[in-house]
């Protein structure tokens, strides 16, 4: 291909040559981010509730402590206390092969396992690792959000005869959600950026596209500047969505 120079130094032709890889990479990055935001939020809610579980009488009291609070605390501590990069490698090369393995997978084996690993191996590991990690952070946002709602709200709602779940979903969570939106938005943006780490296990997302071009041409400005710009546009878009959500759901607080 003909050399195309922009501004006298930017080799646009090498980006054009790998345009498909960048385009597919962009789609993959967006897909992974979206899935992990949704799953991470659901997981975060579950874990956050588990960390706050309390009951007054035995055996529910002990059950809450040992089956909910302790495991969820250890979980959050582990996933916040170890690097995401290490978690991705651990899940891809150690945990997942244990369960999905053509020879002796505990969950899936044989030809199905081989196909799954070859077509979705890195995707699966990456999404699992990122979801588990995001779940830990998001659970803290939920916990803080729920705890920030005055106890009187719960007491009032309970004395009006609402059950605990109804109190949670109709009284506490809607109010907490408003306060949780800004940190949740921050978290979504980190998630988007952290998805680049999955390139290490060979998932063809944006960072992978850049690495491939850098490896082929030993040129670093063009590929990494290109994906920086793409990530930036994506995070700007995400920030815009969060801002709108805040404007929409934050109204209740600013009467």
């Amino acid at each position, binding site marked *: 291909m003909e050399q195309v120079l922009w501004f006298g130094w930017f080799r646009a032709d090498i980006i054009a*040559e*790998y345009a498909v890889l960048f385009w597919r990479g962009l789609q993959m990055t967006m897909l992974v981010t979206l899935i992990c935001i949704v799953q991470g939020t659901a997981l975060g809610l579950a874990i956050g509730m588990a960390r706050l579980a309390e009951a007054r009488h035995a055996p529910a009291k002990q059950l809450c402590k040992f089956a909910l609070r302790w495991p969820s605390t250890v979980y959050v501590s582990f996933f916040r206390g170890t690097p995401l990069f290490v978690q991705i490698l651990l899940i891809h090369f150690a945990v997942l*092969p244990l369960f999905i393995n053509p020879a002796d997978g505990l969950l899936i084996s044989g030809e199905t396992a081989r196909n799954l690993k070859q077509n979705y191996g890195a995707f699966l590991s990456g999404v699992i690792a990122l979801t588990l990690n995001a779940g830990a952070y998001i659970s803290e946002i939920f916990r803080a959000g729920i705890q920030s709602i005055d106890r009187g709200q719960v007491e009032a709602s309970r004395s009006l005869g609402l059950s605990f779940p109804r109190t949670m979903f109709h009284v506490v969570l809607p109010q907490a959600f408003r306060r949780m939106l800004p940190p949740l938005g921050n978290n979504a943006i980190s998630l988007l950026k952290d998805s680049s780490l999955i390139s290490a296990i060979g998932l063809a997302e944006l960072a*992978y596209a850049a690495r*491939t071009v*850098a490896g082929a041409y030993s040129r670093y400005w063009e590929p990494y500047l290109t994906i920086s710009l793409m990530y930036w546009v994506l995070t700007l878009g995400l920030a815009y969505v969060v801002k709108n959500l805040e404007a929409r759901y934050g109204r209740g607080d600013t009467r």
Partner: protein
Amino acid sequence: MNLLHKIAASAGLLTLALGSVQAQNKELVVGSSATYRPFAYENPAKEIVGYDVDIIKAVAQKAGLQIKVVNTPWTGIFAALNNGDVDLVISGVTINDKRKQSYDFTMPYFEARQLIAVQKDSTAKSLKDLAGKKIGVVTGSTGDDTASREFGKTNPDIRRFESTPVVISELVNSGVDAAIGDNGVIAFRVQEHKQLKTVNDPSFPKEYFGIVVKQGNKALLDKLNAGLSAIKADGSYAQIYKKWFLAEAPVLPVQ
């Protein structure tokens, strides 16, 4: 010899050295990616050892150069050379025309060919048989080039990773159907894993590894070439070759 003598002797040597070869006193930094056993890898004592390291040490000794080998990740190794972070690179780098446009190479110090690794039950006999299969390579390596030329550089079936051990792990876990890499490294890794075998495609051309310096660094290039000639002439080259590959050293072309 007592301390005074030692000091006097070293002072004498120092003056001699300063008089003749002032420039050589600077310790040169050698970049090598230590994930490339048996060419370069870290031993348990965190020292970088291997065929490449022995060669560069022998060459440096003959050429009167002070060197320090620094573990440099493969994907950034040429950038490190460009930046001046390292003065030369010995890391199983194949001499090819594309690289010659940007860097200068010494005469060859190793004859290599690409080799395919597959699971034992695979029926692939050559590169062509890998069409439609998932192929693992190291980003920007000769194996990457080979696969990219045959199947297209943006083909999603080509899976690129940071290092050979990761590629081999993917193959062992059935994440890819085949791996392509330099024969020395692939053969070594395959004999470590019982479920793998190598496939030799006779159509792969002979290649040569060379030591890389920044383009135009003729002074260093000449010294390295002189050193290489010297170790080939006095038999130490053959000794090093035998130590790592348990075979007689082939006769290499001079250019």
